[in-house]
């Protein structure tokens, strides 16, 4: 090649061209795939909300795996089981909103922190003639965000939860989305007396099978202290966000 590759001008031109080529490839790819990705995320949100209220394909003989409603059926099931989607705004006013499940809780919490108007989504479900109140949660794990849904009944007893995470350590913190951890929460109460105290993820509560349901505690995951604490903090913060609403439906 006749070009002198050590010249600064060559380096600059090469860098500029490379950025242009790589940038356009990624931009085309991202905008081309965006609709499909968005749809996947939408289905997943519906799956997770339904999972928390016990609408899933878990079977009694396979206690190890989490089986959500398949994506091809989830939209129909979502309209079957979720009777109402509500939005609570900064003044505590409730409005119906059929798109409430698409609200990005992270943004709303950031708005709340800055004192801007915000909208908190809430889902009223009905299964086997029982009312479920599904609350979304968002918090911090060890490396990145964790989030999930908790389904409550009118006594503030947890009927089911779903947790997910962005980048917790595989084998340790990532196990918050394992069945054995999520199942422990069912039956626990988020109330201690009249306080919305949430549920602690405790080490050494000497109850690995989680038989005591009145201690506001579940057994922690070994080696995942910070993720576990993050889950506990997330539950406490989230139920307190919805405290005013929950007080109106709570059976005292």
């Amino acid at each position, binding site marked *: 090649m006749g070009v002198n*590759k050590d010249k600064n001008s060559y380096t600059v031109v090469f860098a500029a061209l490379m950025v242009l080529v790589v940038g356009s490839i990624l931009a085309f*790819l991202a905008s081309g*795939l965006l609709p499909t990705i968005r749809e996947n995320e939408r289905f997943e949100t519906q799956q997770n909300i339904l999972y928390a209220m016990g609408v899933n394909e878990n079977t009694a003989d396979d206690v190890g*795996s989490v089986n959500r409603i398949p994506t091809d059926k989830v939209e129909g099931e979502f309209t079957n089981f979720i009777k109402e989607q509500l939005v609570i705004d900064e003044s505590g006013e409730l409005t119906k909103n059929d798109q409430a499940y698409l609200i990005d809780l992270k943004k709303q919490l950031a708005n709340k922190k800055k004192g801007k108007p915000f909208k908190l989504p809430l889902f009223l479900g009905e299964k086997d003639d029982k009312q479920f109140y599904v609350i979304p949660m968002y918090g911090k794990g060890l490396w990145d965000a964790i989030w999930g849904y908790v389904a409550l009944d009118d006594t503030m007893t947890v009927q089911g939860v779903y947790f997910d995470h962005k980048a917790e350590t595989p*084998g340790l913190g990532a196990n918050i989305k394992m069945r054995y951890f999520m199942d422990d929460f069912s039956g626990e109460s988020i109330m201690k007396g009249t306080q919305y105290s949430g549920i602690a993820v405790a080490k050494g509560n000497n109850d690995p099978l989680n038989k005591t349901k009145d201690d506001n505690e579940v057994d922690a995951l070994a080696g995942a202290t910070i993720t576990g604490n993050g889950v506990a903090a997330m539950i406490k913060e989230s139920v307190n966000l919805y405290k005013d609403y929950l007080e109106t439906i709570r059976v005292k």
Partner: protein
Amino acid sequence: MALLTKKDAGLILDPLADNNPITIQVLGICSALAITAELEASIVMSIAVVFVLGVGNVVISLMRNIIPSKIRIIVQLIVVATLVIIVDQVLKAYAYELSKTLGAFVGLIITNCIIMGRFEAFALANGPWKSFLDGIGNALGYGVILIIVGFFRELLGSGTLMGYPVLGDPILKTGLYATGYENNGFMIIPPAALIVVGIIIWVQRSKNPALVEEN
């Protein structure tokens, strides 16, 4: 071999044992510590690295005559990062569940020193076919160690393999646990990976004394 010449076969086979990226070149230790608490994660990571290193080596090799040497490291980094993002986006659109499993590894793949190491040491000086074989070989060598470490850490630390309980239930005391056996909680924290890798290095070198460095 008819398909590969002896030298080409060596490119694939050497990194599996006598020139293993982890145990001999001591590269990629960081990701080996981070994700080997579970066998499944080790396997997913291995497959991802085979793909990225195989394709990345070819791309770098094709570009080797036009890359200005002053910014070659940055160029290599861009190639890895672009490949990883493309894979991630395509998986998100067409294999959403798999992409969620892979989520935690994306950053680890980009910063994996084996990838940069092979670009720098091999692909910049060799043709695409050879670079491809070298990439696959080194990624497999990395994967083999990852899977061995993952196997022992998950088995001894959690008593499961691929999430399936093979030793019985530690809480209900069934299977092996009935005899008084306990899971070793140390195995699931990252330092245990160093010890397992250390043992592999020890076994490998005592079997083949030619690998032991002279002091």
